[in-house]
């Protein structure tokens, strides 16, 4: 960068991105592990004392699943956010991924234990109901990602293998989005918006050959 532009940018007041970055620099990532599970606990207590809904099982299942998907999508947004706005949330990415995994695990547990609650029915649903098969497949893809979301496993796998493995996030989020569309009775607006966001965030990662050629 030429010296002149550097000087000019230094003279300008801090932009929004820089202000956010300055603020997040002071926020340790562990705070997310404390704050993000709070809704899960509150919803469960409300479900328990009957204030969440007349149908608390369905309500909990949906709340956990939806927040899990939202967090996953937010995780997908971190890289494009840095690329296009310079807002840098990369240091929170592991916590965000693990919290998404927490909510999706809770979603699955509510379904297994409280909703269906019968081993035969659970297996029949997984095999016979495509939206459940798809949701289950998405969850299975997340397991190795959660398993390797620690420093020891990053060292063990090495950065290249680790990165390649963590590209599983993309199909996992896609499956989650499709699962959401399929369980609605009709073409509801909400799941469509989620899927539009997922497709957009994945499309931003595509490397177009045309572009590479022009850069060369």
């Amino acid at each position, binding site marked *: 960068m030429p010296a002149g532009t550097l000087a000019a940018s230094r003279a300008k007041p801090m932009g929004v991105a820089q202000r956010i970055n300055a603020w997040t620099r002071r926020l340790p990532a562990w705070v997310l592990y404390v704050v993000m599970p709070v809704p899960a606990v509150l919803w469960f207590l409300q479900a328990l004392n009957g204030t969440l809904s*007349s149908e608390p*099982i369905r309500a909990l299942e949906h709340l956990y699943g939806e927040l899990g998907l939202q967090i996953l999508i937010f995780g997908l947004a971190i890289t494009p956010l840095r690329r296009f706005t310079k807002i840098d949330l990369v240091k929170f990415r592991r916590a965000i991924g693990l919290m998404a995994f927490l909510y999706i695990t809770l979603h699955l547990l509510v379904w297994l234990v409280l909703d269906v609650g019968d081993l035969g029915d659970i297996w029949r649903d997984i095999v016979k109901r495509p939206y459940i098969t798809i949701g289950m497949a998405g969850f299975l893809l997340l397991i190795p990602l959660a398993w390797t979301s620690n420093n020891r496993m990053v060292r063990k796998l090495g950065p290249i293998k680790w990165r390649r493995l963590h590209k599983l996030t993309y199909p996992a989020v896609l499956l989650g989005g499709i699962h959401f569309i399929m369980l609605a009775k009709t073409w*509801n*607006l909400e799941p469509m918006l989620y899927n539009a966001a997922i497709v957009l965030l994945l499309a931003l990662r595509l490397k177009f050959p045309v572009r590479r050629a022009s850069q060369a």
Partner: protein
Amino acid sequence: MAGRWKNDLTHADVTPKAAFLNRRQVMAGAGALAAAGGIGGAAWAKLNAKPSQYSISEEPNSLQDITTYNNFYEFGTDKGDPARHAGALTTDPWSITIDGLVEKPGEYSMEQIMEGVELEERIYRFRCVEAWSMIVPWVGFELADLLNRVGVKPEAKYVAFETLLRPEEMQGQRRQFIDWPYREGLRLDEAMHPLTIMATGLYDEPMPKQNGAPIRLVVPWKYGFKSIKSVVRISLVEEEPHASWNQLIPREYGFYSNVNPERSHPRWSQAKERRVGGGLFAQKIPTLMFNGYEDEVASLYEGMDLINEHF
């Protein structure tokens, strides 16, 4: 001392606690609605519906359950949307156009429809196609009574129903995910069955807006979506009429849509259901053929394939 008054009341005559608590809930709800500018207090007079032999003896769901957990896509697809948004609906004046193969077609005002009608309380099971259920103490009258008053012509084979189309007040109708207005239909013998009612209230009060005010169909042996709400048109026709869900996804929602534990929805089983209001640890219960009304209605479908053809 002859003829001295004797107390023949027993403990059984005391209003049960659940009932008066429920009344308080109703009054609280009425107050809240009135405060919100929805309904005046006078409209909340008791309907004094008479008990019916068709009522089941199971304990009804609370008014809270029945009025906060609804599918009424005209107000949004979330279960809480009808309670949140149905207040915007104007239900007075209201009229129903009765046309097609009838002797006396016309636009009948709510007052004309209710003229001389004796309301009954019908405590029915209500089974949603989404595998949840409730027990609802409807108030209404048999559809057959209304159809006989307008005179059904012999050529009529089916009855078609239509919900109000008014996107200014029904915000869900502003999006075209269903070909509004919502439509449903019954075969004439189903419509004339004594279990089939036009309901104008529940818990002995006028119908809450989120439950299909001021008048809706209730067909207790069919999935809930057949029981069309806020009806403005009833047409007697010769051909099987258009039904919204059937039209939208014919593979999943048949024209008949009788409650049938044997016939799975392609995306979920219909063998069990969960009673709303049972809390976080409520177990599913087995779904009954024709929602438990098999003795009354099975004969309507004799010889029909209810799994593959007429589901």
